[in-house]
């Protein structure tokens, strides 16, 4: 349990980061307990009470179909986490695969990294759009599309890190002990990639929200009725002047989530840097 305590120490030192962590926990709780927390069914239409301002009955008000905004925002947390997790998974799995193999087998690497370079030259959203056009819409496909954007950056980062790790003395040592390529990659390189990749993951998670929301906004992501924050913003363009809450609440949710992820990522990165490096008072 001291590992948990150690993890929390830097958050005690920086109040803003603590807020970020707290907010993420809030989002997580909302996502997990949505069916029990949300006061209304997010899809329940009420033709009469449309575009209502925040009130005791509807904390965030209602949208153009009379649906409770608060409940929709809570359910939106689910989509946010799901999308984020999916994108991170795709980005990490393929990115790490690409990066480590390229670094460890230089001739293969030269070819692969040039392909990655070309892909990185394509503006991120265009790439995602192109993939959606090819694959079609829907949750799964938008995860792949957005994930593809971050496969390239992850690959590049992993490539650099793997090259650095492969040059370390302990890799030389284990080579001289007779270890083969696969053992080295599996047992020595990958575990040492864990920390920097965790940091990377939080940033990918954050940007995934924005990219996914953009896709939803363009109508190329999730089906329109699914309560994702991006969808909610998309639906409200016509009603902004009448009910600004329709934009503000899901918008704030996205902004705060991204902000919190970045804060936590920063703290993680600072913590992981020269953590176990050498003697204290040298």
């Amino acid at each position, binding site marked *: 349990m001291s590992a948990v305590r150690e993890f929390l120490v830097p958050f005690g030192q920086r109040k803003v980061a603590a807020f970020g962590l707290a907010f993420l926990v809030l989002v997580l709780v909302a996502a997990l307990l949505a069916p029990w927390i949300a006061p209304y069914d997010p899809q329940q239409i009420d033709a009469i009470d449309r575009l209502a301002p925040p009130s005791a009955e509807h904390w965030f008000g209602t949208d153009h179909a009379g649906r409770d905004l608060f409940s929709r925002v809570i359910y939106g947390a689910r989509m946010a986490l799901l999308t984020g997790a999916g994108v991170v998974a795709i980005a990490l799995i393929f990115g790490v695969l690409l990066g480590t193999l390229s670094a460890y087998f230089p001739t293969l690497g030269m070819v692969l990294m040039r392909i990655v370079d070309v892909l990185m030259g394509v503006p991120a959203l265009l790439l995602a759009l192109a993939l959606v056009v090819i694959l079609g819409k829907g949750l799964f496909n938008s995860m792949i599309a957005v994930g593809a954007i971050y496969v390239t950056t992850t690959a590049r980062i992993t490539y650099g890190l793997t090259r650095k790790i492969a040059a370390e*003395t302990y890799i030389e*040592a284990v080579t*001289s*002990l*007779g*270890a083969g390529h696969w053992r080295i990659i599996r047992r*020595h390189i990958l575990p*040492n990639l*864990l920390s920097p990749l965790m940091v990377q993951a939080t940033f990918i998670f954050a940007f995934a929200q924005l990219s996914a929301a953009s896709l939803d906004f363009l109508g190329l992501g999730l089906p329109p009725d699914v309560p994702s924050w991006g969808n909610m913003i998309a639906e409200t363009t016509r009603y902004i002047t009448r009910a600004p809450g329709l934009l503000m609440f899901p918008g704030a949710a996205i902004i705060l989530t991204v902000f919190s992820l970045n804060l936590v990522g920063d703290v993680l990165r600072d913590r992981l840097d020269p953590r176990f490096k050498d003697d204290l008072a040298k």
Partner: protein
Amino acid sequence: MSALLEVEGLKTWFPVRSPLLRRTVGRIRAVDGVRLKVEAGRTLGLVGESGCGKSTLGRTIVRLLEPTEGEIRIDGIDVTRARGRDLLAMRRRVQMVFQDPYASLNPRLRVGDAIGEPLDIHRLVRSRGEKHDRVAALLDKVGLGAEAMDRYPHEFSGGQRQRIGIARALVLNPELLVADEPVSALDVSVQAQVINLMRDLQRDFNLGYLFIAHDLSVVRHISDDVAIMYLGRIVETGPKTKLFAMPRHPYTRGLLLSVPVPDPTRRRGAHAPLAGGLPNPADPPPGCTFHPRCPYATEICRLERPELRPLGDGQTAACHHAEEVAASGRAV
């Protein structure tokens, strides 16, 4: 009866490539024709300054680098180009101890796992219990308890980490250890502990050591025989006491005179014995590569490169004026 390690005409050259097209424009002759021998149970101290190629030589012998030319024989068996199974077999007999105790252990691996890994790689144990016992026994032998097994490298000091590295090198029961500056990164008082440990282990396991170092004082304490290296070649060899008492190569003599002795009554005073620095390894001087810095140099030294020649008493030196150097009096 062949020696434990025999190296003949070993060369390790690195190509220098042009930045854009990666054409080879030159060669760095890091190891440029080395012959040496290490006997079982004895230590050959290999001394040289940075850039002389001693680390490259060590790594080539252990096959972390590929030799460009020459032969490496372990117990008479030629392992120079060994691959696959043969290479693995060689690795069981020759192991390396590295210089930097902070970099030579995987920070994510527990000590017990790090030491036990070679047993897995070579499939030498049949059960976890057996592996555990072997690792524990070794940790005991190097002066750390079996409790160290479950801890991580960062929990240990430099000297202790070096002991762990030594334990890891010994787990396969090798016959030869190539130690690349094993105590250079350690504190003075810790150096003594590790040196003593290595001597005890040598005695207990009849290990041969190729002890690579730049510190002549350390080499003096652990070696039986000494070889001096300069710009990729061995310039002098001999039994320790004879070499230190009466060096035959001007570079050896210069090195010995440069070492500050911890005794103020024996101050060297001004005039550093060796002027200048190491020449560019990609473009070495003609003839004897040491001649630009040599107080004994004459015309022949510029024209003809001296080979290592025997000078009696088990000493060899690569110098046209070895006799003159020997007659110059004590260097220590």
